[in-house]
């Protein structure tokens, strides 16, 4: 705080301008796309707007349209939900193990980091080739599922590591001393305390899978996920319908983010309420 006060005259204003310019840069293009998706029926991919309509939104749901986005969208949502549950479960369990420390934990840590930085094209090609060599056909629910896990698990595990490094082991010991079984400790102490972290892992798991393009590119098989469908029509379908689907999927993502933060807020609220009077679980 005192750092800012000393130079409020010039550098402070410089940083303020940079910050808000960055926000404009961050949200500007997507906002323009949002506006253009309401382009009139005769309008094109850029300004001027020739009237306003919801024609292009309707076009997305028109099966005769070059890219029928309904099925890819459904696949992406189902895949994202599966990935979300797998990432939460696997990361939580790994977090429990990392917390206690075990032989080889450094190896696993570096493996997780390797999974984070491995080129997406290598993962995708590798999984694709693996399926081919096993004489199997990779699909969005098999090969792509694995490819997505290599991207969501590092985030999940690193979040759980951060959560557990702030977890006071004495709370768990206290529960044990009071006679709680391992299962009761898990259910009534560890999970509630780490719940905000788990919501975070769920958010990362869902959104990173829902939006993943590069890792899916070689392994989706016959049926595209939504990001694959989007990239494939970008070159060919030059109508504002592309913006309409972009706007819709962005709104969907924002809803998912909103739900996550709402649940974090509710958890926080309940927690501060619970600390006043003791509630039964």
């Amino acid at each position: 705080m005192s750092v800012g006060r000393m130079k409020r005259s010039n550098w402070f204003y410089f940083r303020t301008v940079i910050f808000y310019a960055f926000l404009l840069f961050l949200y500007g293009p997507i906002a323009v796309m949002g506006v253009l998706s309401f382009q009139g029926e005769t309008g094109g991919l850029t300004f001027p707007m020739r009237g306003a309509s919801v024609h292009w939104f309707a076009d997305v749901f028109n099966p005769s349209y070059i890219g029928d986005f309904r099925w890819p969208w459904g696949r992406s949502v189902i895949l994202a939900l599966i990935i979300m549950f797998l990432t939460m479960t696997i990361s939580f369990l790994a977090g429990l193990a990392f917390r206690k420390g075990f032989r080889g934990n450094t190896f696993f840590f570096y493996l997780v980091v390797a999974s984070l930085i491995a080129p997406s094209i290598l993962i995708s090609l590798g999984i694709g080739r693996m399926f081919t060599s096993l004489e199997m056909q990779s699909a969005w629910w098999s090969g792509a599922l694995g490819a997505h896990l290599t991207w969501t698990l590092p985030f999940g595990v690193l979040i759980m590591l951060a959560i557990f490094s702030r977890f006071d082991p004495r709370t768990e010991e206290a529960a044990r001393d009071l006679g709680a079984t391992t299962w009761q400790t898990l259910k009534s102490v560890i999970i509630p305390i780490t719940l905000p972290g788990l919501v975070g892992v769920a958010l990362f798991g869902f959104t990173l899978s829902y939006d993943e393009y590069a890792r899916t590119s070689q392994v989706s098989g016959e049926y595209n996920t939504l990001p694959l469908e989007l990239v494939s029509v970008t070159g060919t379908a030059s109508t504002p319908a592309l913006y309409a689907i972009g706007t819709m999927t962005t709104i969907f993502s924002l809803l998912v983010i909103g739900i996550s933060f709402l649940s974090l807020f509710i958890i926080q609220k309940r927690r501060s309420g619970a600390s006043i009077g003791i509630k039964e679980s």
Partner: protein
Amino acid sequence: MAHLFEKIQRYSTALQMTPLGIALLLFLIGPIIVILITSFWKFNGFLTIPDFTVRNYVKLFTSGLTLDNYLETIRIAAIVWITTTVLGFIIAYYLVFDVLSLKAKMLLFLLCVVPFWTSGVIRMIAWIPFLGKEGVINRVLMSIGITDEPLEFLLFSEFAVILSYVHVFTLFMVAPLFNTMARIDPALIEAARDNGAKGWQILLHVIIPLCKPGIAIGTIFVLSLTLSDFTAVRLLSGANVGTVALSISNQIGSYNFAYSSANSLFLLIVLLLIVGGIMRLVDVRKQL
């Protein structure tokens, strides 16, 4: 009894790590081994055939295209890294030291990171109506008379690719920098000032050194994402940019799995060396 309990505890750790182990074995280690094997196979123009030849690697290390691709990729990565680091630092600094209310701090930080959870592909496509010949920027520039003709370098160019990388990857720098900067003890800054340090001296000798871990983590993200991306190049470069990942993706497109395997394995090694070097300098795990 205690002995038995210990045994179960040790067993439970193994059980807890099993799902992660299986997932990484099946979808990370497995594919890398398959890639390693395939990189020694040969491609006859139609099919990739089991073999043991180092031809792919010889071609990789003698081809001028490889060098060109790497030089272009490294140049783009360097520009993106410098831009995101400077921008990320200013943004994190503003959030940590200039915004005083905790609520405003968290809200503005969230505004910076929310796009991370939305589609990168869409955010790349969203630049098209902005940068095109008839796009927003050209219209504005021409209407206020700065230029007479539309600027063509804006879209389907290296510029568009770099802009989109900065757009999508800056928050990978902002988040870790915000995290490390927020942990700086204000007493250290007070102490420096009491000892007569000027603003820039505090920045140079106190704040930046303490931010090193944040910069390191941000760098790992930005470099690994930039070096292995081919989506932005495909959507926004208009075939004017040849990066390593794009050429791998093109080789896959022409079914040359043997050569693309060697190529992507080399990219992985380059990335592991870079990230390994950074992790040697800074203990990343301590930052969690």
